[in-house]
């Protein structure tokens, strides 16, 4: 946060004065990062790809609009529209860059002393950054530079990719469970010659151990900061954290949620088989197994056909090997695919959709609540009307409606992530009004506080006032509702997929697993539907528990000082 920037200096001084704890912690952090470097870089590359995808989507906007306008109004107007859209996008980007990356005024820093209001200077700064971005954008598309840029990016990606292929402690290759029996009775190809089951179990253990150690190390970092480097002996947040630490239901929720997140992040490492090999293109990947004392190889697809769980004797149930000596901890599904692998990648799907949807909805709700509480009046009324309109339609119906429309129309968005992105966007659009409504009371209350007036009285800008004096209070509330709602989104996604409308195959999704397995519930293949069902219940309960924990930890009523509640009650007196 830029308003803390002025304390950086002293923070550095404090570390200089007593560097030992910080150094120890940093060394630990480096070790932790180093053993998983390949995976982290992999994540960065994936993130870069997603950003690139989003950027290219946005960059295609102007010409798309230009083409559309040109189609109806002629090419000159079309070009105008394209330029306008491009400028608008650049201006938005400029503002974002200004608020997120550039503290203070870049113009002032360059030595221009402008005798204007903060707002005007701010505007000028934004224009300045927009202009810079425009120049960069122009350079990026003109021929000599675009080539340089392209090769630069490619070089970078290649470099990163070579790093990402480094072995990691949780990698499939490090502790491999894929191998075949030897005629002598042992195993070949697996880690230390262990049986695939044990090798896999060991890998899962390492993944979770690593994740919990990393979490503990972060917590350790916080306590080191709190003990050695923070100037304040006490902050209001300490009380909340202490309260949360004694809130066992909340901690239970946190652990469940954390394990779910780890499952999603380390999905490739957790599955006993490689998802690409077993789920997505099973006929293009072969593996070896021992058949009557000879090691032969076959494709996963062929093998899967004989490992299907469709009730009866042939079912591959929990904790068992199939006929090809592939270890299936949760059995296989009706197509013979490994259920556990399916499950962990399904966790990824749920998490991505949930986080995207709730992240967007929260951002919209927070921004709207700040603006409506600060300015009130017309904006408030319009937002009420909009949100009431959306809320008045049953949410699930609306989701159904929208997803059917988009999928029937074959809109390009419906293809991204097999409909996952579309679903996330729909959820965000439908859930923000509810979120906004739930935090409207608190935000109106905080806007009435005298410190907001005080900020106005010494000329603080509205944007900064909202960010500094209102947002921290509202964020508390929105976190509670967001974590409750995240469970809701996971259920809704599952329900939609159950109905065949959410996430299309082949992207794994828990709701579809339940749907696919429901006809086998009374047979020996009961696990196909039951396990994902239980997982959904667990995760949703986890999110609810976490929300409860946060609420009890942050609840102003239970604050040590009574002043929060008192201020709310007596605010605006006089």
């Amino acid at each position, binding site marked *: 946060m830029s308003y803390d920037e*002025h304390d950086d200096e002293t923070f550095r001084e404090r570390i200089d004065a007593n560097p030992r704890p910080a150094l120890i912690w940093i060394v630990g952090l480096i070790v932790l990062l180093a053993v998983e470097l390949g995976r982290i870089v992999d994540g960065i590359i994936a993130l870069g790809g997603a950003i690139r995808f989003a950027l290219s989507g946005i960059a295609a906007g102007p010409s798309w609009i230009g083409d559309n306008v040109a189609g109806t109004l002629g090419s000159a107007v079309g070009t105008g529209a394209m330029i306008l859209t491009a400028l608008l996008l650049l201006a938005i980007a400029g503002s974002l860059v200004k608020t997120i990356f550039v503290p203070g005024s870049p113009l002032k820093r360059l030595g221009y002393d402008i005798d204007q*209001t903060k707002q005007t200077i701010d505007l000028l700064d934004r224009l300045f950054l927009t202009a810079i971005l425009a120049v960069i954008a122009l350079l990026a598309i003109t021929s000599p530079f675009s080539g340089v840029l392209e090769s630069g990016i490619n070089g970078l990606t290649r470099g990163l990719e070579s790093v990402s292929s480094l072995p990691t402690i949780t990698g499939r290759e490090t502790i491999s469970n894929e191998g075949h029996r030897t005629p002598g009775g042992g195993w070949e190809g697996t880690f230390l010659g262990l049986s695939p089951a044990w090798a896999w179990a060991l890998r899962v253990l390492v993944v979770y151990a690593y994740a919990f150690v990393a979490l503990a190390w972060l917590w350790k970092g916080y306590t080191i900061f709190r003990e050695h480097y923070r100037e*304040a002996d006490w902050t209001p947040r300490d009380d909340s954290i202490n309260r949360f630490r004694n809130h066992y239901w909340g901690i239970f929720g946190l652990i469940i949620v954390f394990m779910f997140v780890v499952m999603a992040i380390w999905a490739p490492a957790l599955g006993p088989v490689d998802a690409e090999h077993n789920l997505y293109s099973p006929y293009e990947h072969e593996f070896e197994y021992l058949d009557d004392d000879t090691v032969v190889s076959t494709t996963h697809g062929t093998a899967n056909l004989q490992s299907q769980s469709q009730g009866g004797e042939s079912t591959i149930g929990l904790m068992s090997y199939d006929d090809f000596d592939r270890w299936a901890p949760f059995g296989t599904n009706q197509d013979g695919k490994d259920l556990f692998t399916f499950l962990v990648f399904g966790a990824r799907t749920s998490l991505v959709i949930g986080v995207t949807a709730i992240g967007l909805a929260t951002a919209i709700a927070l921004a709207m609540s700040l603006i409506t509480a600060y300015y009130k009046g017309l904006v408030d009324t319009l937002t009420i009307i909009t949100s009431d309109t959306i809320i008045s339609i049953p949410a699930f119906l609306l989701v159904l409606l929208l997803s059917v429309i988009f999928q029937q129309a074959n809109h390009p968005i419906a293809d991204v992530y097999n409909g996952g992105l579309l679903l996330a966007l729909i959820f965000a659009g439908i859930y923000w009004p509810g979120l906004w409504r739930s935090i409207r009371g608190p935000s109106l209350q905080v806007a009435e506080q005298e410190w907001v007036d*005080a900020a106005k009285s*010494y*000329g603080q800008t509205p944007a900064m006032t909202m960010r*500094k004096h209102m947002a921290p209070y509202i964020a508390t509330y929105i976190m509670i509702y967001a974590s409750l709602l995240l469970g809701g989104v996971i259920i809704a996604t599952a329900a939609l997929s159950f109905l065949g409308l959410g996430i299309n195959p082949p992207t794994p999704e828990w709701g579809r697993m339940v749907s696919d397995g429901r006809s086998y519930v009374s047979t020996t293949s009961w696990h196909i539907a039951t396990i994902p069902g239980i997982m959904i219940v667990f995760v949703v309960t986890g999110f609810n528990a976490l929300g409860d924990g946060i609420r009890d930890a942050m609840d102003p009523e239970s604050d040590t000082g009574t002043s929060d509640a008192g201020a709310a009650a007596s605010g*605006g007196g*006089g």
Partner: protein
Amino acid sequence: MSQEPTRTERAASDDDRIDADTDEDVMVKVRNLRTYYEGGGLLNPTPVKAVDGVSFDIRRGETLGLVGESGCGKTTLGRTLVQLESATGGEILFDDVDATELSGTELEKWRRNAQIVFQDPDSSLNDRMTIGEIVREPLDVHDWKTPRERRQRVQELLDTVGLQREHYYRYPHQFSGGQRQRIGIARTLTLEPDFIVLDEPVSALDVSVQAEVINLLEDLQDEFGLTYLFIAHDLSVVKHICDRVAVMYLGHIMELGPTEELFSDPANPYTHSLLSAIPEPDPTVEKDRIRLHGTPPNPRHPPEGCPFSTRCPARIRPDEYEHLDNELWTRLNTLREVLRERERADRTVTDRIRELLGKDPRFGTIDEIYDELFADQSVPSNVDAILEEVADHVRANDETAALDQLKAEFGGACESEPPEYYTVSDTGRQSFCHRHDDGYRSPDEVLNTRHR
């Protein structure tokens, strides 16, 4: 040295002032200032007239008290002076610059000179920020010098208001009400303002710390040459700190003059009433207490004439009724207030149906009201006759006609015309009351005869 930042500016503004201002002493000139709050939405367009035409001067270096019951508009007036509310009309001249006209850069610069201390120290400090961040924020906003110098300045200020430098990294939760108010004061001082509005700065504090904070404010005034507008609902607080006092009622200033004089020899009937409400420290002194009846009128519908006319103990009465019993006058007033309430109350459809059926659970019949008010009074026949006519109007559900009739009969100058400001002493004390006109007996005299 902490005085550095605005010294040059201050000098410059001094020059301006000498050039432009002939009345050398005056710092703030308020002229016919009005601040209305818009009515609640489309259905209720009548604005609340929180400040309804006030004019006064604040002299450089003085402390002007602003006293009144809660809801009289004093806080709104204070907030308008520092441009936290925008004025509906009138002027606020700071050294001949009209603050109501400022916007943009000028307003931002001007804000440095006019600051406000809030009433509730719990609500005026953002308790997610450290004391340092809170006090430093104005400096950050105005990009004052380097971060290191800002921190130093804040620590000096904490010293100045009687806190410790180490408190920089503490949070508001860790402080008592009095200390929090000191922090609030330190924050207003960061920008070196010339003028500070103190909005009931001690009324939320324990009596034991009130005096400390008041002393601090006085010390700061001496040290930095500050000018204060001290808002209070309590005359006794004002008595010690203020050079002059303005008494406010329902959006108007009723009386304004030097503190000593105003306390020892109040001119306006409202000031009289307020003063007589202060408990006498010496119980042996027999004091004739003037009791005010009723509550202040709704500022959405202020009375037509003098704002105080609905409750004034010295109201001008028509000659023929001058000698009616005081108690009867009070009852007549109450009657009018009841009818005004009824006139304003919106009646729902159900209420109307009930009325048609002869049931009126909400208001009670006029006979019941009369019973309540006049049963134990000896009502002269001429008054009785009028009351009968009034009752007829009310029975016909025409409160407006009833009120008109009462006003025509029992009203006087106070209710038909707003008074003017009369200078009531050679110190220039002003009072807003018809009774200072030569045609009437003075408030003093009237109160003496009526309330002995």
